[in-house]
């Protein structure tokens, strides 16, 4: 199988495999870049529709080439480096932001035939072909690792600018991203529990069989909660509204990229939108069965996979834009409260309940009783936590009176 070589010594360097792999890398790279271009256009168009404006409409049909024009414009702008900047880190930061964004997409199965227990490979040009760049044994953990590294780009950009607002923006960003990574990881753990694997390919395969063609999807199987937590946490991880305190224009000018201009700014911009596309794709893979979906006619063959995948990703892209157009920005303490006091405990409690269900399956317990007891325990735990938080707040206001001046 092409590009499914999980281990170094499985790779046959004397065959055509390296060439195919190189072609695939270039293909994924190009598709990602083009999708970012259209994502920017899509976001501007949808937001302007929701705000009763026209939006970009001059460059190309329906203004579709507006992003290209903006990109070319950014190329020819003057590239400024602030006097107080740490020059090397200042130049390094945009790439630290962009490269993880690219690498993250490599593990997503874009299409493939997952129906009737197939492993997602398709026959193409007489070769067995897998619509996924790599399928490493660590799988989704690569996504977590890369999203962890993506923080450095934002953090170092703010610090190396040698200026106040970018620094404040980047400190906010790193605190926010580290906080929400915990909730993200815990909701991922629920997916690993149900599929028994870290590999994206096997996660999609585990979701393929179920009632009505879509009944096996993790979003139903895990009871919606992990998906909702993942959606919220990923919005925070992407620094998108309503969690865009990192670049809150009213408070911080432009946030971490205030001092960036020209090509370097466009790299941040690119990374940001690429992360949106990648995050949507990851969400589809984890919770919505990836390229799997009901097949209505046999004539399209494996193209159904590609079609379903693109449609599902579009739904999430729209959701992110919808969030931006609808929800007001959170205050910083609200953001931290939501992450630490609600999402993380809930994700943990839900994960434990799913674990109990798993044990119950082996032991032959009544699943409804397990769910009922699990929900009661989660509610009791939540009440205890709420009580503790309230108690701490009362204690604090009585003893520590904040004195100004």
């Amino acid at each position, binding site marked *: 199988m092409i590009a499914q070589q999980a*281990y170094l010594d499985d790779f046959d360097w004397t065959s055509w495999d390296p060439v195919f792999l190189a072609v695939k890398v270039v293909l994924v790279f190009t598709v990602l870049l083009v999708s970012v271009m259209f994502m920017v256009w899509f976001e501007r168009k949808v937001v302007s529709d929701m705000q009763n404006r026209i939006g970009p409409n001059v460059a190309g049909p329906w203004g579709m080439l507006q992003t290209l024009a903006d990109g070319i414009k950014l190329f020819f702008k003057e590239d400024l480096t602030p006097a107080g900047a740490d020059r090397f880190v200042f130049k390094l930061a945009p790439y630290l932001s962009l490269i993880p964004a690219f690498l993250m997409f490599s593990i997503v199965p874009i299409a493939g035939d997952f129906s009737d227990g197939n492993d997602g490979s398709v026959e193409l040009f007489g070769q067995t072909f897998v619509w996924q760049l790599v399928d490493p044994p660590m799988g989704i953990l690569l996504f977590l690792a890369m999203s962890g590294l993506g923080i450095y780009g934002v953090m170092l950009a703010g610090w190396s600018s040698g200026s106040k607002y970018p620094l404040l923006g980047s400190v906010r960003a790193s*605190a926010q991203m580290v906080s929400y*990574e915990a909730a993200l990881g815990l909701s991922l753990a629920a997916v690993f529990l149900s599929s028994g694997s870290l590999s994206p390919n096997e996660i999609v395969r585990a979701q393929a069989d179920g009632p009505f063609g879509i009944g096996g999807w993790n979003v139903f199987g895990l009871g919606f909660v992990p998906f909702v937590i993942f959606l919220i946490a990923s919005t925070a991880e992407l620094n998108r509204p309503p969690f865009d305190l990192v670049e809150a224009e009213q408070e911080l000018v432009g946030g971490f990229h205030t001092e960036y201009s020209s090509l370097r700014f466009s790299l941040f911009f690119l990374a940001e939108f690429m992360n949106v596309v990648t995050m949507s794709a990851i969400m589809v893979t984890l919770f919505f069965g990836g390229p799997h979906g009901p097949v209505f006619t046999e004539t399209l063959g494996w193209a159904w996979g590609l079609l379903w995948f693109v449609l599902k990703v579009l739904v999430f892209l729209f959701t992110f834009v919808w969030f931006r157009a609808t929800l007001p920005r959170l205050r910083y303490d609200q953001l931290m409260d939501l992450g630490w006091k609600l999402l993380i405990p809930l994700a943990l409690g839900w994960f434990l309940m799913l674990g109990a269900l798993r044990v119950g399956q082996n032991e032959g317990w009544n699943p409804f009783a397990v769910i009922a007891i699990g929900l009661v325990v989660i509610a009791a735990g939540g009440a205890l936590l709420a009580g503790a938080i309230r108690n701490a707040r009362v204690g604090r206001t009585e003893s520590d009176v904040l004195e100004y001046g």
Partner: protein
Amino acid sequence: MSLQVLVFLISALIVLSGALGVVLAKHPVHSALFLIQTLFGVAVLFLVVEAHFLAAIQVIVYAGAIVILFLFVIMLLGVDRSEDLSIEPIVGQRMIAYVSGAAILGLLLAVIYSVDDLTGGTSLTGAIDRTDADGERVPDVNQLAEVIFTDHVFTFEVTGLLLTVAVVGAVVMARRIGGDLQPIPESALDQGVLADILADGDESAEDGASIEGEDA
């Protein structure tokens, strides 16, 4: 030269240059960046010996969380400026560092050279992969899970408890119930970007106060 050896050489070069950078860089933030480079190189080394899970965890935990916190502290405490490396804060520190560094190197070399005598085989760690009944390779995450949750489950749980105790302890120590809030010591305000921000905040507060005063 096999692919493994090539990857090993490249990542060893990355690890070593990163490690040298950590100790030789004059600037704490640059040191932290070199540390990430080192950790990344080590993760690639893990990949070469097919410890995929360890490699991922190495990047997620160390590079993705711990060094972030280092940087956070460096930035917040305002020590983000170059240090004069000729000053020795603790007398004799440098000498002891040289000696212990050389001792660790000696120990490692001794282990490497005596590996045949110790194990009678080819490696210290045993085979790097295992196959199941069907002849398929067992991923290292499954092997690791098996060991942690069977033979070492008590150690694992106790370690988890220890970490929780540490977190609770840190919260208890950081929280002062009762008593007045202490002002930030003047010495901490004298340096760093944070100091500039605080200084600016003071100025604007004073401005605000004077305007209010005029109104009154």
